[in-house]
């Protein structure tokens, strides 16, 4: 390792020995505050933090083993000399004596294809930018409710990515023709290739939602469940949700889904003051089934926006976990009156049948859901001896989904090309 490092450093020195004077050109030039690189102003500390040499960036980790901007180094470090400029890198010498190189391009900073182009083209999608999402309207029901054939989706990584990107755009994705013997882990880990994905909750790794006498959760009854998001009482409500219909022979019990983002967008245009209340006022959610030893509660506003760009980011809404009693204790009457006005208006739009997609799920059908955006619910059903309605549900962190889309394949070369600089 030291031998390779030594060779790299020698090579870098060579890149400077022919360029003892500061280079000034339209590509890279030193400025008082740092460096102007391809028309973009970089600060001195930023250039030092961006060094991509093997001493500064772990070759296998792609993170910094050292800390160029510990408090003791900042803000004194300065870029003092620009060396060789290649397609993807610029050689730099700093005032702390270090010689290295910084990236000019995505390819230089992230690594070779295909990772670089995915980063450039898919970043906004995996960040759930509203501009990349398609809010449901009456005009595109076929696309949002499209069923994807399992065998096609798992045939190749590109196909899997296409399905997952569709899911991100619409907040929902349907799979069909899943072999009946496959369980949740088979589908998510082995099929979709999302490793270390499933997040355990108070409902374990996989929750089998089926009728129970004396249900410890409303989901285990036969009553209808209005549109809602799950686990609102969690401090960190899970993001991605999987529904795997294992069997469904009851009468009734149709599943339905609603795009809350389209509702919020409409309210932003027509009654923005009500949206503001839903995002400013946190309410308490609680889940404390007796005798189970479970005690979850937390506070959330119903609607949250991205602080940088104002995008609609998350909705949390689970009516029968709302701790109305606590709300009455923690907020003054005037605040509650305003909140209830906003919330009831919002719910009237959520429960407007024209926004809802309804389907009687069949055994072998699978739904991937954005639990921060799309509400799910079911109509009541009647249960008779011999009938079953069994839906397996699990949850997952968003980042594992995003990683599946963005990451390279097993065996792909992702190391930096600094040797070609």
């Amino acid at each position, binding site marked *: 390792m030291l031998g390779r490092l030594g060779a790299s450093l020698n090579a870098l020195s060579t890149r400077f020995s022919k360029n003892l004077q500061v280079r000034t050109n339209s590509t890279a030039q030193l400025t008082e505050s740092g460096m102007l690189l391809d028309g*973009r102003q970089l600060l001195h500390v930023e250039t030092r933090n961006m060094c991509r040499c093997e001493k500064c960036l772990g*070759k296998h980790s792609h993170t910094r083993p050292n800390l160029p901007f*510990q408090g003791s180094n*900042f803000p004194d470090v300065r870029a003092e000399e620009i060396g060789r400029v290649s397609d993807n890198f610029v050689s730099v010498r700093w005032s702390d004596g270090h010689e290295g190189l910084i990236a000019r391009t995505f390819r230089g900073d992230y690594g070779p294809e295909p990772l670089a182009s995915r*980063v450039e083209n898919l970043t906004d999608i995996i960040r759930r930018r509203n501009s990349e999402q398609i809010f449901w309207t009456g005009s595109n029901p076929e696309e949002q409710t499209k069923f994807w054939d399992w065998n096609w989706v798992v045939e190749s990584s590109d196909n899997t990515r296409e399905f997952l990107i569709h899911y991100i755009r619409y907040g929902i994705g349907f799979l069909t023709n899943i072999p009946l013997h496959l369980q949740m882990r088979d589908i998510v880990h082995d099929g979709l290739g999302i490793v270390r994905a499933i997040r355990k909750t108070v409902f374990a790794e996989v929750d089998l939602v089926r009728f129970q006498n004396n249900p410890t959760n409303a989901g285990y*009854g036969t009553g209808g469940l209005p549109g809602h998001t799950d686990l609102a009482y969690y401090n960190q409500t899970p993001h991605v949700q999987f529904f795997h219909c294992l069997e469904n022979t009851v009468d009734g019990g149709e599943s339905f889904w609603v795009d809350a983002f389209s509702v919020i967008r409409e309210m932003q245009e027509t009654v923005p003051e009500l949206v503001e209340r839903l995002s400013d006022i*946190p309410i308490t959610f609680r889940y404390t089934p007796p005798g189970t030893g479970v005690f979850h509660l937390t506070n959330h506003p119903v609607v949250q926006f991205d602080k940088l760009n104002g995008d609609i980011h998350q909705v949390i809404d689970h009516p029968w976990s709302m701790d109305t009693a606590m709300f009455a204790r923690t907020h003054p009457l005037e605040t509650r009156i305003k909140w209830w006005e906003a919330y009831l208006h919002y719910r009237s739009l959520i429960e407007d049948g024209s926004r809802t997609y309804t389907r009687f799920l069949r055994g072998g059908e699978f739904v991937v859901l954005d639990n921060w955006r799309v509400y799910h619910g079911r109509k009541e059903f009647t249960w008779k001896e011999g009938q079953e309605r069994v839906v397996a549900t699990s949850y997952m962190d968003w980042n594992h989904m995003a*990683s599946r889309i963005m990451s390279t394949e097993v065996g792909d070369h992702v190391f930096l090309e600094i040797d070609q600089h």
Partner: protein
Amino acid sequence: SSGINAEYGGSDCFGGTSNQPLHTNDYTNIKISHVEGIKDHFLSVSWDDGHSGIVPISETGAYGNGYKRTPSSRYYDLSLRKNAVQTFWDTPTNEVIKRFEYSDVADDSDKLKEFLAHFMQYGLAFLFNTPQEPDDLLKILYNLKITPYWDNMFGILSKVSFQRDPTNQAFNNQRLAAHTDMPYYTQTPSAYFFHCVANELDGGESFWSDTFSAVKHIRDTEPDKYDLLTTILVPFRQYPKEWHMAGRYPTVELMGDDIYRVRDCCFVIDTYQFLRDYDAETRERWWQAYRTLRLLMEDPARTVQQKLGAGDLVLIDNWRVQHGRNAFSVGGAGGRRAMEVAYIEWSHVQNRLLKME
């Protein structure tokens, strides 16, 4: 149900076994038509839809059918991370470094709650005399009934020991400055157990510092910098082989006026993306604010430092307390440094603190 609703005439509205409403109808225009009177924790009421029922007038009544002992208000506020009941520390006091005996907390639920409350108050809590074999951490969590743990890109149990070609800088032997873990996750893990299996090499002392104390200091003395730390979104990125984890978040997040969460891991700041998100002037001001924070975090006077021994276990609030380690030697006569880490989300720690037995 033999609970209180049976005494008052039925449980049409509230599930006796779920503690959840059975109906979520539209009650927009409903009005109270008659108030019967108060009995114990409830008010008997009739509404103009023809329904008669009971409304709780106390927390005991509000928490479901039957009389149920509610958790202490201190535990409740601690579990919601309210600053008013947290103790920010800028020097390592005896209370901050207080150690709890593992067998005490494992065998006694009240002592375990005391341990968890201490953790929530200080952001840090130490256990000693825990089992010392590899993988024992999962058994410890099971014994303490603090589950489920959180599977992540490092697995359920992350084993931190020296590697020749490290896929993460934690696996080398260099100094790691104070940081919080996995800031690039949309939902960055809230707490983790750091278990020492062996620590036989020279060096490698662990250290921790309280970011909330530093942030409060900046808020009180340099509010402009505080504003930058709470508003500018810092991009993070971690992309070892076959993973691509990325996200953008402010260094300091607030819940109302309370300091709620800190994300700070300088090894994975995506400076390349930062250039694209903000203009140079904004970034320069942010770097100045960030430097102020880092100088406080790296001040030895504000730091707890210990060389952990086999069987020591530290519970760390990853949204508040930063951790790091000194460099350690490798390649000598023998010995090893082996740590194991398991992450857990806040709701599961909260559940253990608040749950009724």
